[in-house]
């Protein structure tokens, strides 16, 4: 039976090739999209964690990973936080989220107080100087390189052309920063920020400091930044729907390709199905022959798809600012979708073949 499956696959190389490409496209679609989403989010997470603060103080619905521009924390909390034992430095951060200038994803602009922020994070100006007016920004080295920006270049924020005053390193938080005062003016939120970043005296005691803050200023959100996470990609609102749509699209496309391929196959091989029946092959046997063929094709499609996705991912990272991360769980999902599409797509042709009348099938020209 296995040699029948293999010989059938080789008999029609063009059909096999087209079905393999169909399944591979679905796999590539899933792998690249989830890889892209994962890459963008993880890149963001890494930079947030590189910021150096152990504790973040904010209001409900205003956390650091929130996809909105919410300035709901009064900067004057800063003074009260500094009174709490164990707190070393506090820096206010305002956050503005705008859609990415490449049209893909989103981009965050932080409003910071440079002195306290740089003390916590260790960022330093490596070219130019810090922002001095409201229409000046600083950017990190990665952004400068990727977008080919220099000191003096202009950059779009709030729909306006702002000037790059300086370039800083290392990476921490968002890649574009303006002064907190400027952000407060743009968002018409005087004395507000998104959250207060807190560096503690002794990182090993951060939980105790967290509890003390909670007790002193109840009703606020006090989180340890080491616990920061987007959870799984599928749980990020907005992205969840997108990922689901990609998965659904992929399985539909791949199963349709397999359905079509196997349907032509069984029509073409009607007489051979009749021969199988004359030899006493049961319905189950015939369904198994056709499913095995479809699954074998899908399996090749999955392999080809993953290889192409890896190569494409590498190429995209090299040539664009996008980061791609292939997480094993998504690779597995992509593979299962490819194989699943093979199984599902072949069901109808397989049952149809199994139910053929043997005498008529044998008489088929």
């Amino acid at each position, binding site marked *: *039976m296995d*040699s*029948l499956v293999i*010989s*059938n696959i*080789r*008999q029609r190389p063009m059909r096999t090739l087209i079905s393999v490409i169909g399944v591979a496209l679905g796999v590539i679609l899933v792998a690249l999209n989830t890889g892209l989403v994962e890459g963008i989010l993880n890149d963001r997470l890494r930079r947030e964690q590189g910021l150096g603060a152990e504790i973040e103080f904010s209001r409900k619905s205003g956390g650091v990973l929130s996809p909105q521009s919410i300035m709901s924390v009064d900067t004057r909390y800063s003074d009260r936080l500094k009174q709490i034992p164990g707190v070393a430095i506090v820096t206010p951060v305002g956050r503005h989220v705008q859609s990415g200038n490449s049209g893909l994803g989103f981009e965050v602009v932080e409003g910071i107080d440079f002195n306290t922020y740089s003390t916590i994070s260790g960022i330093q100006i490596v070219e130019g100087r810090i922002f001095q007016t409201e229409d000046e920004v600083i950017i990190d080295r990665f952004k400068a390189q990727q977008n080919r920006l220099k000191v003096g270049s202009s950059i779009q924020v709030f729909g306006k052309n702002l000037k790059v005053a300086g370039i800083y390193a290392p990476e921490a938080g968002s890649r574009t920063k303006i002064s907190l005062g400027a952000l407060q003016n743009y968002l018409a939120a005087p004395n507000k920020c998104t959250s207060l970043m807190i560096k503690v005296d002794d990182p090993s005691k951060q939980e105790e400091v967290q509890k003390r803050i909670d007790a002193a200023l109840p009703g606020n959100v006090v989180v340890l930044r080491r616990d920061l996470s987007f959870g799984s990609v599928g749980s990020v609102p907005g992205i969840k729907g997108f990922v689901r749509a990609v998965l659904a699209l992929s399985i539909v496309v791949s199963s349709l390709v397999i359905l079509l391929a196997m349907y032509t196959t069984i029509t073409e091989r009607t*007489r*051979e199905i*009749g*021969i*199988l*029946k*004359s*030899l*006493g*092959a*049961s*319905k189950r*046997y015939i369904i198994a022959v056709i499913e095995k063929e479809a699954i074998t094709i899908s399996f090749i499609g999955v392999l080809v798809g993953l290889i192409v996705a890896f190569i494409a991912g590498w190429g995209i990272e090299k040539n664009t600012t996008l980061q791609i991360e292939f997480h094993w769980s998504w690779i597995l999902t992509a593979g299962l979708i490819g194989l699943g599409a093979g199984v599902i797509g072949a069901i109808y042709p397989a049952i149809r073949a199994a139910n053929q009348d*043997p*005498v008529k099938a*044998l008489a088929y020209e």
Partner: protein
Amino acid sequence: MSAILQTENLVMTYRVGKVDVQALRGVNMSIAPGEFVSIMGPSGCGKSTLLHILGGLLKPTRGTVIVDGEDLAAMTDAARTDLRRRKIGFVFQRFNLFPTLTAEGNLRLAEHIHGNGKRTSNDKTRHEVLKLLRLENKMSHKPLELSGGEQQRVAIARAIINRPAIILADEPTGNLDSENSEIVLNMLQQLNRELKQTIVIITHNPEAAAVAARIIEMRDGVIVKDH
């Protein structure tokens, strides 16, 4: 009752649109194990229909069909398929080999189906069959690389490799020249003699019929002569 194949009042009616076509109108016959029977008769008299029913490919309209002790007329489709797997070997006029498989592959497939997924090849039978049909050197050839006579010999090997109780052959020499017909017929005769194989063949050819020990003649869906 020692018959291996037996029919009583076997009736087969095909329905074509609103018209009923009576292909068999009460066939009674009995074939003993080890017999070599040939069925003759004019075109359209119901020979193939009878053979398909005997092999469980068709469900008769009425009557009984006993194959090696099992009543075929009362069976479900699946049960008849299973009986075919266990007890019947078919040989067709058009050879019906799998074109993409070698002769060896064709035999293995038959063994695989017979074993319900497990290969149940008996090397001794296999060797015997291949030697008898003089196919030892042809096993790695695909059907298109074989002559018609060789293809039909592979088909016979495939039908007999699992040692079915009965071989049913529908005009096995219909697509062969007289030389190859003779070879194939002689081999069938040999299988019948040496392996005690029960064989029923349909033929238009009196010479072909002559190799059989018994000839059944049909006309208009009934047996008119049995000698």
